[in-house]
């Protein structure tokens, strides 16, 4: 206390001094009060048919679900069920797309993105209701869940009712083994059936189904679908009867029937194809386990972690009786915490307690017996016959806390941004900020924040019976806020730790929201000694390990699957991973089995240096997934096969963007086929832009203006300092890298010099950051706008769920076009034409890496015609699409694959808006040619750039100087190559 007092005294003294000293200085203060947009809950929602894509409801206009629910929490929950079918359909907007179903007759086909249906129904008793839809998955090429927006009387009641997930059910259609007995990636099949699906929170954060408040009287409900591919037959409002609490059945005898084991990996259905089968081969007690073979013996782990992912197992009970249920699990990702699952039998919770079963952290496998809180195993009555036991990831009791904490993180980030606007990136010890005057709301905001966090901390402690270790990260934040409440100006000095604490808190909350769990088997049993041991014992494990070690000398896991080596085969190399290899191999097997194909294809996972292998005579026939700068450099040495000589090459060209082949041309030949393409997008934090009333920029000039405003507020805009910017500015001004003969650079021309000047001036004059992490800065909002490779989309979607809906992806900024007479060039809509050409050129290992990958045939290949036939097939639209879908199916959204084939993008699970943006940008993609010796271009351009930016060199002089060096090397290289 005394420390605090003397601190205050010192402060007061300083203030007095400062006032005296600064007597003549006119104090200026920036009004930092944020303009909060009025909470306008008008009905501008996606209900009028046909234009759902553009009419996405804004998050700000709709209340958060907690808020919505709190309004009606005490309302009645009538038991009646209001179920309506197609007869209640309200006509309007576009004509409904009917479909004739064998079982249900006429139903609605919701295949098109944005298709919607409105039903009319009458409510007898006002109250809170849950919602169910009767649907059946339908249509192919869809791997993700359908998203459904629910509007009641034309208004989406809460943010949580936007993008409600309607799952697709999957099963393993067939277990696949190779001739040695290794298990291969299984083929998945959809399990289409009519199901009633209850609507849950879109973010998967609430344990209970969504509640809708309905007054008595007539209402309409409008369902709008994205990425749907489902048939719809009806909708119902109802209230589920709560499951009874467990009470030990009196005087009953536990069954003495033999235990029934359902292997985790042999599930009957799954609601997410991305839940992966796993192999634990270090453990003799796994079921099944084999020292030699690769067998899947478990399922889940980090791929079974998001709420609403469920797995079901069908078990056949021979004799009716009272059974116990146990699950052999491992939860080794969520340190010090637990994952939660709901256990259902035949789709129903047997007891209320089964709605939330906790699986604590452990690096080892353990048997989790479903038991009461007192630890007494629960008894379940199972009739003889087939039953489905299912486990679904649920947020658990902590769900409300998590929602609240996510909110708090967002609020903390807002406070932090306000602070940054006044203080800058770090506070100055010798300045008094008078934060309470600069930001009048700050003290109250911090106090309110402190209260909210404290309440949540206590709640977590109460619910999890935790002693504090679990909430330590939350506690750090609370301690700091307590400190800030005492002395608000400290916030300026502690800004950096404050930022770090927010980031830590955010990732902790996200981690708590995940529910990872790995399952070996589910067992239904009677007698306690029927429960198998989870460990085989030390000596068995040791022996198992020794066996496994011995086997590693003989087995090659780089090749799984069978190739008929009796007939001629092509050797194909892939460098990415087991999953990809298996997918390519299974595709290749399909190919070999096709009529008229005489060769087999053997896919190998190799990470070795290609050229060395080729020299040693061990090279492949075809190499997949190589960097774009490699083909020309190999072709110049005569190592590749010219693809343009083959039949049908010209037809393959139309699959791609016009200049996709530019990097593969050499001496009139074409030496590779594109596989993927890379381009930049512009990521914008829409909430911050709204807060600061900024417009999303279209041109560089507009971007500079936005950046100036942001910088004035100590925020920033992100332009990566790599060569992509130079290449893109070049492309937008009609420049190129090399002359027509591709013997020298063109950096002496005006367009090139201008582009170089513009590029360097971003960092010398306009004050953009040279180095930053776009993901983190977008996440905190410190950099509300950033240009980045579209891969950032996946990263933000998966790793920063707390800002979902608060950011958008746009095409990059461009250069406005003018006619020869200086008037703006207009398009048919009267808008000025903006050239958004973009190139991904960065300095690659051998040339300009343009972020893309390609595939080529090596000269050593004996059967070149066969290799070309395979390549032609492999790069065809259908196969690329199949590959992309399979990858996403197996590995989830995070690994979404974007083939270079122009038309395939349309079939991938992007939303309409996203697809539109991506296609708009893709249209403007520019790829520059590669030439032998291009490695010298990238590096010397970088040198020139750094000369200008670090040492204030004149850009024209620097470019000239390095251009000479480049051209000298190019000339020399050209001589050696020829």
């Amino acid at each position, binding site marked *: 206390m005394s420390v605090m007092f003397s601190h205050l005294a010192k402060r007061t003294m300083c203030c007095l001094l400062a006032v005296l000293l600064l007597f003549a200085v006119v104090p200026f203060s920036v009004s930092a009060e944020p303009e909060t947009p009025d909470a306008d809950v008008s009905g501008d929602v996606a209900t009028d048919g046909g234009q759902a894509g553009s009419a996405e409801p804004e998050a700000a206009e709709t209340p958060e679900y907690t808020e919505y629910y709190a309004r009606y929490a005490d309302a009645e929950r009538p038991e009646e069920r209001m179920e309506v079918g197609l007869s209640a359909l309200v006509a309007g907007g576009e004509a409904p797309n009917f479909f004739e179903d064998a079982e249900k007759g006429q139903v609605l086909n919701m295949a098109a993105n944005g298709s919607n249906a409105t039903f009319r129904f009458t409510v007898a008793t006002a109250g809170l209701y849950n919602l169910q839809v009767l649907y059946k998955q339908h249509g192919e090429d869809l791997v993700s869940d359908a998203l459904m927006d629910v509007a009641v009387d034309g208004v989406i009641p809460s943010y949580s009712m936007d993008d409600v997930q309607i799952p697709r059910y999957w099963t393993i259609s067939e277990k696949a083994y190779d001739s040695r007995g290794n298990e291969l990636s299984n083929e998945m099949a959809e399990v289409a059936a009519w199901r009633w699906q209850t609507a849950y929170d879109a973010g998967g954060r609430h344990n209970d189904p969504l509640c809708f408040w309905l007054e008595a009287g007539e209402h309409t409900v409008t369902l709008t679908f994205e990425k749907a591919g489902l048939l719809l037959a009806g909708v119902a409002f109802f209230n589920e009867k709560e499951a009874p609490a467990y009470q030990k059945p009196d005087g009953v005898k536990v069954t003495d029937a033999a235990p029934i084991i359902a292997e985790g990996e042999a599930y009957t259905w799954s609601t997410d194809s991305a839940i992966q089968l796993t192999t634990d081969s270090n453990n003799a007690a796994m079921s099944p386990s084999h020292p030699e073979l690769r067998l899947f013996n478990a399922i889940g782990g980090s791929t079974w972690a998001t709420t609403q992912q469920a797995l079901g197992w069908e078990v056949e009970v021979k004799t009716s009786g009272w059974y116990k249920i146990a699950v052999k699990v491992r939860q080794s990702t969520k340190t010090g915490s637990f994952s939660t699952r709901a256990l259902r039998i035949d789709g129903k919770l047997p007891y209320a307690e089964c709605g939330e079963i906790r699986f604590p952290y452990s690096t080892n496998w353990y048997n989790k017996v479903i038991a009461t809180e007192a630890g007494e195993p629960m008894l379940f009555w199972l009739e003889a016959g087939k039953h489905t036991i299912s486990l679904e990831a649920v947020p658990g009791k902590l769900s409300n806390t998590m929602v609240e904490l996510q909110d708090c993180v967002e609020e903390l980030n807002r406070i932090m941004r306000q602070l940054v606007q006044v203080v800058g*990136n770090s506070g100055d010890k010798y300045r008094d900020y008078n934060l309470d005057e600069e930001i009048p709301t700050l003290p109250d905001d911090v106090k309110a924040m402190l209260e909210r966090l404290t309440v949540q901390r206590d709640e977590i402690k109460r619910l999890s019976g935790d002693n504090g270790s679990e909430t330590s990260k939350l506690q750090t934040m609370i301690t700091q806020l307590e400190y800030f409440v005492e002395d608000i100006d400290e916030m300026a000095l502690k800004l950096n730790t404050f930022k770090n604490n927010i980031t830590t808190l955010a990732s902790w909350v996200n981690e708590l929201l995940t529910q990872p769990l790995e399952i070996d088997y589910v067992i239904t049993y009677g007698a306690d000694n029927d429960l198998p041991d989870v460990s085989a014992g030390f000596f068995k494990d040791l022996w198992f390990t020794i066996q496994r070690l011995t086997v590693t000398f003989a087995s090659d896991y780089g090749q799984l699957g069978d190739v008929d080596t009796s007939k001629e085969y092509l050797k194909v190399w892939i460098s990415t991973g087991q999953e990809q290899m298996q997918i390519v191999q299974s595709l290749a097997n399909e190919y070999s089995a096709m009529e008229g194909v005489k060769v087999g294809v053997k896919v190998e996972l190799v990470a070795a240096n290609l050229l060395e292998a080729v020299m040693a005579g061990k090279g492949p026939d075809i190499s997949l997934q190589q960097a774009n700068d490699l083909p020309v450099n190999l072709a110049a040495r005569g190592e590749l096969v010219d693809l343009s000589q083959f039949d049908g090459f010209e037809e393959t060209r139309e699959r791609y963007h016009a200049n996709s082949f530019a990097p593969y041309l050499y001496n009139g030949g074409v030496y590779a086929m594109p596989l993927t393409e890379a381009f930049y997008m512009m990521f914008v934090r829409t909430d911050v832009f709204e807060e600061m009333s900024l417009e999303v920029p279209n041109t560089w000039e507009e971007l500079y203006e936005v950046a100036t405003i942001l910088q004035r507020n100590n925020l920033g805009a992100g332009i990566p300092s790599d060569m992509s910017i130079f290449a893109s500015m070049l492309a937008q001004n009609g420049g190129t890298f090399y002359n027509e003969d591709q013997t020298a650079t063109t950096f002496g021309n005006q367009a090139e010099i201008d582009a170089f000047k513009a590029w360097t001036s971003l960092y010398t004059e306009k004050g953009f*950051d040279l*180095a*930053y992490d776009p993901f983190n800065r977008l996440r905190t909002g410190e950099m509300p706008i950033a240009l980045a490779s579209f891969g950032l989309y996946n990263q933000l979607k998966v790793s920063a769920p707390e800002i979902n809906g608060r950011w958008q992806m746009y095409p990059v900024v461009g250069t406005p076009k003018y006619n020869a007479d200086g008037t703006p060039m207009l398009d048919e809509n009267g808008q000025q034409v903006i050239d958004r050409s973009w190139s991904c050129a960065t300095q690659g290992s051998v040339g300009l890496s343009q972020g893309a990958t390609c595939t080529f045939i090596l000269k050593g290949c004996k059967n070149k015609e066969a290799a070309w036939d395979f390549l032609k097939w492999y790069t065809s639209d259908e196969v690329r699409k199949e590959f992309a879908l399979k990858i996403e199916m197996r590995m989830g959204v995070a690994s979404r694959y974007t083939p270079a084939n122009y038309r395939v993008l349309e079939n991938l699970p992007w939303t309409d808006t996203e697809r539109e943006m991506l296609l708009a940008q893709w249209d403007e993609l520019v790829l520059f040619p590669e030439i032998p010796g291009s490695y010298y271009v990238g590096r010397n351009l970088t040198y020139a750039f750094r000369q200008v930016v670090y040492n204030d060199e004149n850009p024209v002089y620097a470019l000239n100087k390095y251009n000479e060096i480049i051209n000298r090397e190019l000339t020399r290289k050209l001589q*050696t190559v020829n």
Partner: protein
Amino acid sequence: MAKRKNLGRDIKRYSVCYFMVAPYILLFLFFILAPIIIAFFFSFTDFNMVKFPPDFSGLDNYIRIFLEDDDFLIAIRNTLVLACVTGPISYFACLFLAWFINELHPFLRAFFTVCFYAPTISGTLYVMWGFLFSGDQYGILNNVLMDLGILSEPYQWLTNTESMLPIIMVVQIWMSFGSAFLSFVAGLQGIPRSLYEAGSVDGVRNRWQELFYLTLPSMGPQLLFGAVMQIAGAFSIGATITALMGYPTTDNAALTVVTYISDFGSIRYEMGYACALSFILFVIILATHWVIEHIIMKYASD
């Protein structure tokens, strides 16, 4: 004639010894000597990893290296600067640290040995220096210096030509307490106590005299071993630079012969030229080694 007879008889007599050194000799021949000879051969060709056999180009590669190649001069200068600064510093630092901790309690000695040795065995842990010197305004050093008001905007430590070499030196010295350090620790332990007792009887008056007249002379082999390791280490700095600063570095400011060799070998595919470069490096290391060996053996055998 008689001599040859003796040789034959000797081989027979010591056959067990030959058998025992055979594994090492074979490995040495195949993995050290043979590559050197092959590289020497290829250095007179224009081998490009594709055309085999390559064309013989005589001394072209060497002429180009010494007379035309500006980057080679930068590389050799950087390599020598790094070697001359980090080599001796790390050598003496190893020696003195080993000496300092020698007399500690065995437990503490083991503890400090692990501490100093840890950076060497931790593989690529040196990437942590990348966080320290990150050019981001939130890079550790930038952040601290901006907080203190020394810098007003982030400094690009790892790409600015002025800061690159010093940083590499710091990292290299941090990493250099490797096998040389261990051998010193072991060598110091191996000196019998009786030697010091005899010394004190003979009139050694302080620790410095003890060090120079007793300790170091009796550690000849360790000193030599340490020197060889440090020289080789100092001349072959390369992976650290590429990991921290990427390749190529701005204006080749941190170009060393090793990174230059890998540039020609794996990026430009001019293997003949790369072989000539590596042969030159080999000769430089050999010569330095020879000089150092003479100095140390002279001192140690006195």
